[in-house]
């Protein structure tokens, strides 16, 4: 009986410590997140590049999407323009802060979307193109180290503060050598692994600033479904202000 009481008490305290840990930021984890976000958030720079998304599905032909992206992280702005295939051409997204609009050229209307909208029904979400602000929405906890491919990585667990994020539990694997993420696992509320993002390669766009050039998104629920993204023609030249407007998307489809 005594053993049972001791065990129950221990379990109670462990559960308490666990839930406290989930609602509190871990200092080491916060430092790692701030470090890689500083490298990946291109504040002070305008960035434009061309992304090619190749979606692979089992027993289906590969689907290719080409999009042009314009980013101004400091102002929380981005514009995405679909360039290929013909059926998607003219479509686009415009994001300003938390507001994301999808422009549909066929009906010439803007549809207000969740800022985590899937791009062209792929496994890639619009929020990966914008500024990272993980600590606003998540509590971070340091889980230790693990090896991903050949790199030793710090593993950070993110637990959503509120449930209005797509993946409320995430594990970020951050390379020790350069402090950049190499893998992100996304889980459901009940902690089923849904998607994994592999950050395969980065390019340096400015001193201490990086942009991902190859990314692989793997869907763990649909067998064989993955999306490979390549980012090319990266430029940090100034972008005209009118590109970060809804009118720009309308003009492009004319």
């Amino acid at each position: 009986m005594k053993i049972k009481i001791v065990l129950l008490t221990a379990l109670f305290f462990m559960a308490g410590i666990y839930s406290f840990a989930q609602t509190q930021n871990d200092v080491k984890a916060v430092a790692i997140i701030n470090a890689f976000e500083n490298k990946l958030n291109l504040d002070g720079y305008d960035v434009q590049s061309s992304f090619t998304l190749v979606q692979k599905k089992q027993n289906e032909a590969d689907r290719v999407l080409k999009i042009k992206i314009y980013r101004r992280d400091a102002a929380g702005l981005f514009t995405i323009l679909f360039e290929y295939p013909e059926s998607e051409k003219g479509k686009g997204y415009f994001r300003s802060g938390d507001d994301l609009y999808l422009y549909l050229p066929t009906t010439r209307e803007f549809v207000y979307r969740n800022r985590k909208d899937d791009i062209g029904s792929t496994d890639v979400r619009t929020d990966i193109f914008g500024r990272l602000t993980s600590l606003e929405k998540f509590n971070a906890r340091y889980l230790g180290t693990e090896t991903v491919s050949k790199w030793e990585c710090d593993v950070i667990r993110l637990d959503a503060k509120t449930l209005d994020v797509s993946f409320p539990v995430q594990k970020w694997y951050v390379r020790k050598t350069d402090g950049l993420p190499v893998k992100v696992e996304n889980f459901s509320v009940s902690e089923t692994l849904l998607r994994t993002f592999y950050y395969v390669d980065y390019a340096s766009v400015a001193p201490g600033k990086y942009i991902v050039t190859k990314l692989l998104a793997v869907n763990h629920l649909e067998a064989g479904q993955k999306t490979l993204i390549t980012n090319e023609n990266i430029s940090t030249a100034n972008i005209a202000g009118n590109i970060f407007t809804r009118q720009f998307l309308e003009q492009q489809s004319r």
Partner: protein
Amino acid sequence: MLNFIRLAFKNAFRNKKRAMTLGINYTVVTILLLLVLSFSNGVRVTVSSSLVRGTAGHLTFSGEYVTGRRAYLGIKKYPEITQTIKNLYPDASILARYSFSSDLYYNGVSKRLSFTGIDVQNDSSYQNELFFREGNWNVFTETENAVIIPKSVADYFELKNGEDVLLSRRTRFGAFNTGILKIAGIHETENYFLKDLVLCHFDYLQSVDLANDDTATTLFVYFPDTANIAEKREQVMVSLGAQGFVVSRPQNSTDAINAVAAASPKYAIEDTDTDVIRLTVSTIDEVLSIMANILFVVNSSGIFIAGILLFIIAVSIFINLRMTINERMKEIGTMRTIGLERSGIIGLFVLENTALAAIFSAAGILVSIGVIFLLRLIVFPPNSSLAIILNESRLVFIPTLLDTGIVFFIIAAFTAFFSFFPARYGGRIKPVDALNSTF
């Protein structure tokens, strides 16, 4: 008078060939109208019965609630609403459902399905509607994460009873959630509205969607009978309105249908500081109103065809009667000479034609019953496009005495009306002209 009527019936068949030609037209029109009306009745009864047994109540509640500027689809405080209805109508039975659309995954393959959660302790309405290919109802009720799936879904995934499947959905808050469901039954059903039914426990779907315990997506209210449903709704609306709920009727048939199909998508932002619970209460007639539009088209088509046939009949009556009058000039002259008034001549010819219409319409009624019997023998495949209006894989025809009487009366009245004008011509002929006629 009786002799007059007897004479009219006798005269109706004096020219047998002409009488048969016209009579067949009357019969065809009668059959057509009766088939259309009884088919329309059958469709209405079949669809409403299937709906009530499956996916709608005599009153169906749907709604949304706003809390913290977020509008969620669903009925908050549903136990309170249930109690209010019970206080007003203790005989009513009330069923709460939790429904949403979601992807089901098995072995890396997915399919989007509509899930319906029922309170297994109090809601056995589906029990007799489902024919179990595998598994059974008892296993379903005993297992919290149990699911009953249609055979079509089991075939799609190549699933067997007892296997686990994964449910993954974006919850009402936006975050993805997943759950493991255990197959407790594979069903088939005759009820069109239940053929894609994926049945789960109410509590389980509620928890996967991260909803509060007092939230449902629909409430179905069933009264012991269907009398005065609209009045009962008014009473319920007044009582709920007094408790602070914002209650309304559906604006149109689409609203009413949406009420039946209410599910739980992600919240929408609403620019208001006031938390509110909005309810829409639809009657079964409103839910069926979209079907009424379809029936209107069916009925209109039938009536249009019948109208064309009646027009042909009208022309035939006119020509036939003119010919008959010309052939029977001497008879008209004799009748007028022995004292029959002009109105008597008109009446006799009108009565002759009406008698012909009555006899062949009666025959049409009998033939249509036979046609209905034969049509009922046709078995349609359960997945045919007609499935929504089939009962036991057969079309349903419900001829009523009222419809039959109306059809019979309309044809008789129509004939009398169109016989009057040529008959009037016969009545106007002077006896001496009639007797001297050389036709």
